[in-house]
């Protein structure tokens, strides 16, 4: 029973540890963070097939939640490793930084396992508030407060929408437990209260996912907060949002009017994200808009719940987390003293650090969705599922968006590989090069042999 929630236990242990160590102004929490990350990842690997219910079924340990706890703990570890010495963070707050990040991760773990709407909501809140705080931990400047304000206001509003949606759902179904709601869905297919509830409920998810129309915070937060914080914000909450989309939202997809709403939102999300990214000259903003467009792709999976779309969405979500973290690994290394990370900072990366340059190229090819990388394979799974479910137009939109996306992804590749700059070598910490190599290989591996992750995602979906 305990080994099922071992990852949660370890992460809460980490939170407590960092809380105490911060009180005593312990100077070097970084190795501890990595240690906790590794143990949590290993623990979640061990508990991959555990099955148990907690708190009267409000929190479910099943293959699905363990799949995500594996991804989240793995991403937590990666985010901690690539954060390195937290160069952009106020050095006095490093202890708290790890405390809040651990608490946030705990919240995300709670979300992925929650099968009761209020538990789920609390999980989301637990995961959000620490992030509002760490987003402001940037050294010097002071621009970050604007972005934190946006992050918080948008967060609060969309969470309020979500809570409102939950009350509607409770009104319609008379329960907040998914186990009671799901069997009753066929009776409420055109119940306008339930439909409205689902739509409001989506608000919180779309916010976490940075999908249209709740994406406005993303570019500012990405640009304003310290790069190492953004790496975390960009990867981990997205995973939890995908989990919620698949576990909760997909159950309601049969309802009247939800499919068109979702199709339109996902198409708008992809298109607007890509269009806005075209004009960006700053790496983090570019990645923010790229996140918006990727949110659109992931949402496509929901259109085909019975044709493998959910598995594909899970796969794509996992791949997206890896791609984002890989991109931020480079972003953190090339970040200068200034507020932004202009794309110009990447110029001549090839001469300054070949390994990072190759990894960046692989990552961006993957983000663009070209073979032989994981991004393409994930997209292929999504598109085949969606078309198999009978939707042609979203497939066409996604494919055309690939073309839009290539403009700016190619721009980054061009600057880093083709451009040259007479500059000293990039002084990267020792762990960066092997890590870059590993991430590059991982993206190629998932592109060429996605079988293992796909099977894992498949079992996760089956356990729902």
């Amino acid at each position, binding site marked *: 029973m305990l080994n099922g929630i071992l990852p949660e236990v370890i992460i809460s242990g980490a939170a407590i540890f960092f809380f105490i160590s911060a009180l005593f102004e312990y100077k070097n929490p970084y190795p501890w963070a990595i240690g906790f990350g590794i143990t949590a990842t290993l623990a979640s690997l061990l508990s991959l097939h555990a099955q148990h219910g907690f708190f009267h079924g409000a929190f479910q340990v099943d293959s699905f939640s363990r799949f995500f706890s594996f991804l989240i703990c793995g991403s937590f570890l990666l985010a901690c490793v690539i954060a390195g010495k937290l160069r952009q963070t106020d050095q006095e707050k490093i202890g708290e930084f790890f405390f809040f990040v651990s608490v946030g991760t705990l919240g995300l773990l709670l979300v992925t396992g929650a099968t009761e709407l209020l538990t789920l909501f609390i999980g989301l809140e637990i995961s959000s508030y620490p992030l509002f705080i760490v987003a402001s931990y940037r050294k010097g400047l002071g621009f970050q407060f604007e972005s934190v304000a946006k992050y918080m206001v948008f967060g609060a509003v969309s969470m309020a929408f979500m809570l409102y949606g939950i009350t509607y759902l409770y009104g319609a179904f008379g329960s907040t437990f998914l186990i009671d709601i799901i069997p009753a869905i066929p009776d409420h297919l055109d119940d306008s209260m339930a439909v409205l509830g689902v739509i409001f409920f989506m608000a919180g998810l779309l916010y976490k996912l940075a999908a249209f129309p709740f994406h406005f915070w993303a570019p500012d937060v990405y640009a304003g907060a310290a790069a190492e914080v953004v790496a975390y914000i960009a990867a981990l909450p997205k995973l939890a949002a995908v989990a919620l989309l698949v576990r909760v939202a997909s159950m309601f997809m049969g309802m009247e009017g939800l499919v068109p709403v979702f199709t339109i939102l996902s198409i708008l999300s992809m298109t607007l994200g890509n269009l806005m990214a075209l004009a960006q000259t700053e790496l983090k903003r570019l990645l923010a808009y790229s996140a918006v467009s990727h949110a659109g792709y992931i949402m496509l999976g929901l259109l085909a719940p019975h044709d493998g779309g959910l598995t594909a969405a899970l796969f794509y979500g996992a791949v997206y987390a890896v791609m984002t973290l890989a991109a931020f690994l480079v972003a953190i290394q090339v970040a200068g003293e200034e507020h932004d990370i202009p794309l110009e900072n990447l110029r001549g990366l090839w001469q300054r650090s070949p390994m990072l340059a190759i990894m960046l190229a692989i990552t961006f090819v993957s983000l663009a969705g070209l073979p032989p990388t994981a991004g393409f394979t994930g997209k292929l799974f999504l598109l085949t599922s969606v078309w198999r479910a009978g939707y042609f137009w979203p497939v066409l939109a996604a494919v055309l968006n690939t*073309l839009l996306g290539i403009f700016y992804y190619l721009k980054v590749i061009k600057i880093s590989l*083709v451009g040259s700059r007479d500059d000293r070598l990039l002084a990267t910490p020792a762990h960066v090069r092997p890590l870059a190599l590993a991430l590059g290989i991982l993206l190629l591996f998932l592109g060429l042999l996605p079988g293992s992750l796909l099977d894992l995602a498949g079992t996760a979906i089956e356990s729902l």
Partner: protein
Amino acid sequence: MTPLATLHQSTLSYPCLSLIIFLPIIGAMVLAIIKDEETSRWFSLIILTLAFFFSLPLYGAFQPMLPGFQFVENHSWISSYGLSYLLGVDGISLPLVLLTTFLGPVTVLCSWRYITHRVRECMACLLLTQGILTGVFVALDLVLFYFFWEAMLIPMFLLIAIWGGPRRKYAAIKFVLYTLGGSIFLLLAIVGLYVQAGSFSYPAMLSLHLSSRWEFWLFIAFLIGFAVKIPMVPLHTWLPAAHVEAPTAGSVILASVLLKMGTYGLLRFNLTLAPAASVSLAPFLIVFSVIAILYGGLLSLAQQDMKKLIAYSSVSHMGFVTLGISVLNIQGFQGAMLQMINHGLTTGGLFLLAGMLYERTHSRALQDNAGLGRLMPGFVFFLGLYSLSSLAFPGTASFVGEFLCLSGAFSHSYRVGAWVIPGALLAAAYMFRMFLTVTWGKGGDPRYAVDINIREWASLLPPAVLVILFGFYPAPLLRMMNPVLEEIIARLPAEKTIDIAALITRLLHGFLN
């Protein structure tokens, strides 16, 4: 099941096709640890020569009379989506595979001194493109095919963007965007076929019976993807830019192999998977081919830049290939296939020569190179040979191909044949113009006229030998491809069955719903 879909196990004891794909790709990775520039050149040359020699047993062991695919390698890849690692060659793809591996060492030789900076990276890109291009021609699983098709973009982009001429970045991006713009439709077609067939395996799809509406849109989607690569006329504008700006090796790869991916796809996928649509849409293809032949020829006649001249001549020559395919008879098909090979050898050779002149004079303008040929006998020998072959002079390889294309066109209809004849004349005009200017014109600086050296001989001679050989004796090629081509023709319905106007009007009422 059609004979085309039969899979014959390999008679060779080792996985030959995988070997010639992955030998260069692994070689490219090994280059990461070779620090020395000279070593990296020799290393790549050896790897690509080895790949060529490893591909020769394919020719030896190939049994022309067996329909279907030979040397098949079939492994399950992603079972839940019906993906397999399925490789095999038949009479259409084998000549192209051999062409690719044959030109591999040539591309390294011509970059030997041309590339002066970031040599290792350049060699790695060359090796990668070689491996990937081979993969395109042997992949029988559509996703695998698409993998190779798209994976080629990045090394090719880098080749043009890093080692190209002054406007290289523009050319490289244009190349990628055009190709990608086409290949997203390819992806749509592939996913659509999967939805219909439940598998990505090409042989399995051959037994599919699609409704005429599906066939029509499938044909269009495939066509857009391939037309960009060929390139067919309205979509050809990336080609001059890319050809002109690419380094010699890039131009050779582009002209000799990359363009063939398009026509190969047309023959392989369009005609066999959408036969009814092919018959109905062939007239449009013929019109575009004739336009390509004439327009490409006229453009070529007006060029002052040698590489541009050759690039536009490629448009015209590829027009002959698409013409041969779209007249839908056996002479046309044979002509198209031969023309693909010959164009690969001839235009590759011409680009090598243009590159050599550029290395000497640092100019591609005809004006600056005028009269230099007179002082370089070895150079002029090859220039003469390749120019003659390019204008389809009897006795050179292109003559046979172009003649067969023309005879296919005439047996299709006299009117089409008559339209194409001026194209053949134009070829003579622009090729002789270039040849005469470079050899006897006035304006070049004679100090630059240094005759070609042994390395350059080594890169020019092998294609030249084949040009003459296939000019007199194309039988080995024809024997290889005939059974498959006949099978493809046998699959085509006798008359048009698709009402195109009705399908297009239906678009207004709803699409594939």
